[in-house]
């Protein structure tokens, strides 16, 4: 008996119990749907990480005050006064792998323009910060070294802040208030989107570090150094000399912990990637459990179906169906069930990831590989869990089957 025929018989048998068939498929639909959605979201995250690396610059080296050691009593960089402008100068002087470096102090505050106000973070830094992060100014200009030297009240806005305070208006030349201080807006940056960690990098105001240190935070130290190495490889190679230099400058004895930490962009990316793949693995295993449960559901329904149709099987055998005919009939039925579930699952997964991406503003990437694997997997589930019921049907004794009530 040819395949097309068997397939038709299978479709008809499934159509006879539409409700039952669709409920049976549900497990597979959920399993496959979850796989597709998880993979699309995971790939979207990977894409974000890649973007993050590019946006930070692959040469970036990041130095922060405080201990980077996870666990233990960790002091935040807020409280640690260890990092200074002299440290920055020493690094530039003594580590030739580092080409440029910008200090950073961070603060939070309410920013007001006329009747608009917005709570955001204020980053105090030097003009070369925008270079190091390869972050272009979209309109106006960045502040100058001169303005840093004078601790001028000037600022550059991230696009989110610009949009919040100046809807439909150019902020350049306008004056905003941060706390009680007036700041003149000299420029607006290009949009950079989300960071690797998922926060909005455009929701920030940039001002000279000296201004932030003296007039907002009231501190003399700095919190981070954003440095840039001569090449991507140099960024990794620079970690050791920087560590040695800072330990010496901070008088840290052998065996004592650092009071700062150094990260390169590739490390951050690795970390983010790792977290991503753990998540994907976790969700993937939940999805495969769902596939397994779906498969068991198919097996169960197929066994019921074989019992219900015992007489039909007897009749088919009496008129000439071989064991193989009966077996392939039920096997194809099971595979049709699981493949249809798989197809519905792929559609549901794509719809689900589209929904997530629009709700959470998180990019999703449709993976053709995942779709193909899901389709193959659902077929395999049908074969695996359909085999036993089909075998059972094929091995019925025709006489007993015909007599079955």
């Amino acid at each position, binding site marked *: *008996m*040819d395949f097309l*025929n068997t397939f038709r018989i299978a479709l008809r048998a499934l159509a*006879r119990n539409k409700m039952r068939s669709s409920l049976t498929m549900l497990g597979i639909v959920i399993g496959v749907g979850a796989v597709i959605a998880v993979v699309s979201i995971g790939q979207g995250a990977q894409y974000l990480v890649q973007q993050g690396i590019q946006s930070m610059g692959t040469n970036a080296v990041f130095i922060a005050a405080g201990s980077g050691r996870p666990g233990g009593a960790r002091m935040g960089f807020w409280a640690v006064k260890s990092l200074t402008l002299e440290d920055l100068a020493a690094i530039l002087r003594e580590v030739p792998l580092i080409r440029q470096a910008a200090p950073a102090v961070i603060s939070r505050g309410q920013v007001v323009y006329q009747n608009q106000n917005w709570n955001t973070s204020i980053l105090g830094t030097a003009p070369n910060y925008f270079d190091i992060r390869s972050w272009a100014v979209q309109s106006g200009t960045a502040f100058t070294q001169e303005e840093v030297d004078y601790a001028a009240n000037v600022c550059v806005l991230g696009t989110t802040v610009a949009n919040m305070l100046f809807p439909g208006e150019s902020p350049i030349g306008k004056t905003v208030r941060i706390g009680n201080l007036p700041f003149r807006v000299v420029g607006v940056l290009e949009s950079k989107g989300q960071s690797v960690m998922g926060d909005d990098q455009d929701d920030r105001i940039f001002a000279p570090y000296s201004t932030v240190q003296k007039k907002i935070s009231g501190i003399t130290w700095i919190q981070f150094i954003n440095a840039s190495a001569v090449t991507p490889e140099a960024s990794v190679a620079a970690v050791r000399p920087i560590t040695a230099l800072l330990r010496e400058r901070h008088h840290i004895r052998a065996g004592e912990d650092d009071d700062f930490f150094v990260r390169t962009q590739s490390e951050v990316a690795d970390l983010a990637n790792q977290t991503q793949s753990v998540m994907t693995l976790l969700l993937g295993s939940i999805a495969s459990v769902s596939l397994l449960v779906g498969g068991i559901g198919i097996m169960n329904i197929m066994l019921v179906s074989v019992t219900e149709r015992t*007489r*039909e099987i*007897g*009749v*088919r*055998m*009496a*008129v*000439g*169906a*071989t*064991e*193989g*005919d009966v077996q392939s009939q039920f096997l194809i039925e099971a595979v049709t069930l699981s493949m249809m579930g798989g197809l519905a699952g792929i559609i549901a997964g794509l719809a689900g990831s589209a929904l997530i991406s629009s709700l959470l503003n998180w990019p999703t990437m449709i993976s053709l590989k995942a779709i193909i694997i899901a389709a193959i997997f659902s077929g395999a589930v049908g074969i695996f869990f359909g085999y036993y019921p089909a075998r059972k049907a094929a091995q019925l004794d*025709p*006489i007993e089957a*015909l007599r079955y009530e």
Partner: protein
Amino acid sequence: MEEQQAQSGEGGAWAVIRLEEVAKTYDLGEVQVHALRGVSLEIGRGEFVAIMGASGSGKSTLMNILGCLDKPTRGRYFLDGVDVSGMSKAELARIRNRKLGFVFQQFNLLSRTSALENVELPTVYAGIAPEERTRRAREALARVGLAEREGHYPSQLSGGQQQRVAIARALVNKPQIVLADEPTGNLDSRTSVEIMDILQRLNEEQGLTVVIVTHEADIAHYAKRAIEFRDGRIRRDRPIEERLIAREVLPTLPAPEGPEAEKPEAGAAPAKDAAPVAPRA
């Protein structure tokens, strides 16, 4: 009429069915049930045999063996000169498909499947192309007078009509033998005669070998030969002397009641269809 001579005698030409000391024993652990205790039997081409006997005498067991649904415990069974006792399941399935046609007491049609598709079923397993399948199924349905009902489901057909669909299904692969285990067991007497009419016509016009099991002596009178079983053995094997011809008996029976009288189909249609159908070679 010459056909009939050849068929009536046990000798005839070549026996389509030959049993040699066939026994069937069911081993139920503690007890052994001897359903058949050594049956030797020859049935020639074109015969019409009625198998009779008390309940439990082994008639169905014999039919299952003749129909290649079951294998004898002992003895040999030659079908069309070929020993089928040692054949594989797949080979037996092929023989059931090509050489044999079954009719059951419970009709055994597939529910929620049209009459036409029910009739087509054996052709599906014979690997016949779809158009040819439909053509043959229509032809077989016409032969039993149900051409107009091809789209009906079994639940929309009377018992007699369902049994005629079952006969059409038995015929569709042009078998040599039709085996019917109590084909009229679930039918009233008039409908039973209509079924016998169809079987008699097939036997005479197509030279089909027919073996039926029946409890009713008057049904056996439509056959040409009666074999009586008792306790797993043949007790009596004799030709039917005053054979009844269903075509002649039908007009004497009271006409069926109700608006949906079956008479025009059962009585007249086969006669009408008989002409275009050529006798089997």
